[in-house]
């Protein structure tokens, strides 16, 4: 029973953001399936993966949301960011333009998530060192300036992929332990398992009409 797949203490919601083609879906696939997905089609709408991990002896279910790099529909974007405990912000080390857009992704992440959301910077495609367009040092400096944790990863070889996802979870768990993340806050992105959240039927958007 202790090892059962549904036995976990918390659910953490993660989102993966970044320009199109940086490898968001491949990172997710590598983390959840431990496989590289060659010929991975571009994401349309929202895709989704889960995996149960362990941090300090506690089982945690990661609920990872992956969306299109070019998301055009605002309603989706808002629900997507809302209540994320962790945000993995990805660029491609072989394409400088994807790095140059990080500040805009970071602005979105800061504006649309709660202040305690852990943002982790990933430089993907580290296996393509010969085509490198952004140095490790430059990205590290950007991460330090903005208070982000940073790793270069490869969704293809799997290098550092586990570390990026697990390190983010450790930081979130630490925030819970030291009380800086308030679990009673609706958009904390963390749900203790036995606490079903209910909202009134009909949702928040329906308004009465004036007739």
């Amino acid at each position: 029973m202790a090892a059962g797949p549904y036995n976990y203490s918390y659910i953490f919601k993660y989102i993966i953001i970044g320009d199109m083609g940086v490898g968001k879906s491949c990172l997710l696939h590598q983390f959840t399936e431990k496989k590289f997905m060659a010929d991975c089609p571009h994401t349309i709408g929202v895709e989704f993966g889960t995996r149960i991990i362990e941090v300090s002896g506690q089982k945690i279910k990661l609920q990872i949301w992956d969306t299109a790099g070019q998301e055009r529909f605002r309603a989706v974007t808002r629900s997507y960011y809302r209540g994320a405990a962790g945000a993995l912000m990805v660029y491609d080390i072989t394409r400088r333009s994807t790095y140059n857009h990080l500040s805009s992704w970071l602005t979105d992440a800061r504006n649309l998530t709660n202040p305690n959301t852990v943002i982790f910077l990933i430089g993907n495609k580290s296996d393509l060192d010969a085509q490198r367009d952004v140095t490790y040092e430059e990205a590290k400096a950007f991460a330090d300036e903005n208070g982000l944790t940073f790793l270069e990863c490869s969704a293809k070889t799997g290098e550092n992929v586990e570390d990026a996802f697990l390190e983010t979870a450790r930081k979130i768990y630490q925030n819970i332990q030291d009380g800086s993340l308030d679990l009673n806050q609706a958009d904390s992105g963390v749900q203790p398992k036995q606490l079903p959240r209910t909202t009134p039927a009909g949702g928040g958007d329906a308004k009465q009409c004036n007739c």
Partner: protein
Amino acid sequence: MKDCLRAGGPTWQSVENTVTKDVVRTDRKNPFYEGDDNPNMDIMKNILMNYAVMCPAIGYIQGMSDLLAPILCTIQNEADAFWCFAGLMQRTIFVSSPRTTNNMMDKNLEYLRELLKLLLPDFFRHVAKCGSDALQLMFVHRWILLCFKREFPESSALHVWEACWADYRTAYFHLFVCVAIVAIYGQDVVVQQLPHDEILLYFSSLAMHMDADVVLKKARGLLYQFCRLEKIPCTLAGLCQFQTGSEQWDSHIQPMIECSQVHGDNDPCPFAGK
């Protein structure tokens, strides 16, 4: 070419990069597009770039390559496929402005919520209980954007496309297809009281495992059921044309439209008090 693109919008170079990135990951398992240096990928790219030049305000949007691929593969001629694709775009939500509150995606989702409420009330109640994010119905976004192209094997998907394009009684037949999928495959969602994330996971795992014939039959049945209702809520008044004529189902009376008191806009409801 640069003049074609709006100041402040994406540069020509970035449109080309985006198109290039997506073309190489569209339908590569289809023999028509498989293999390195396949010339049909260049044709697909040309068509998408030409479309972006012709309609600079739209440019290229992810998902367009998915819609173009079967057209080009069927027609096998660049010029004809271009015009066919341009025509198809006119009836997709890609051409509507996504940044305004009144975009086509929102409109489709509003209709779909109302349809589910009417035709599958148990399912709707469960989703509503899961919260307002669940009511965004994210599991249907790809269904609607690509008209089910990634949900069925290609020959079945094209069958679904044609059923939608026929515009029989409604320009929103695709929403009846959505309701049909939920009706046929979604009962476990309610029975097992799945939470929001698992609803998403549940429906995405159905991709390529559904029977298009069964789904289409059910969708047609739901449309029939809808058209036979004695009264429908005002929120669905625009969904179907109820004109009488020589159509097959014109023997019944027009449904009464009733104000449901819960629509989003603040204009006075034309159906109030009727």
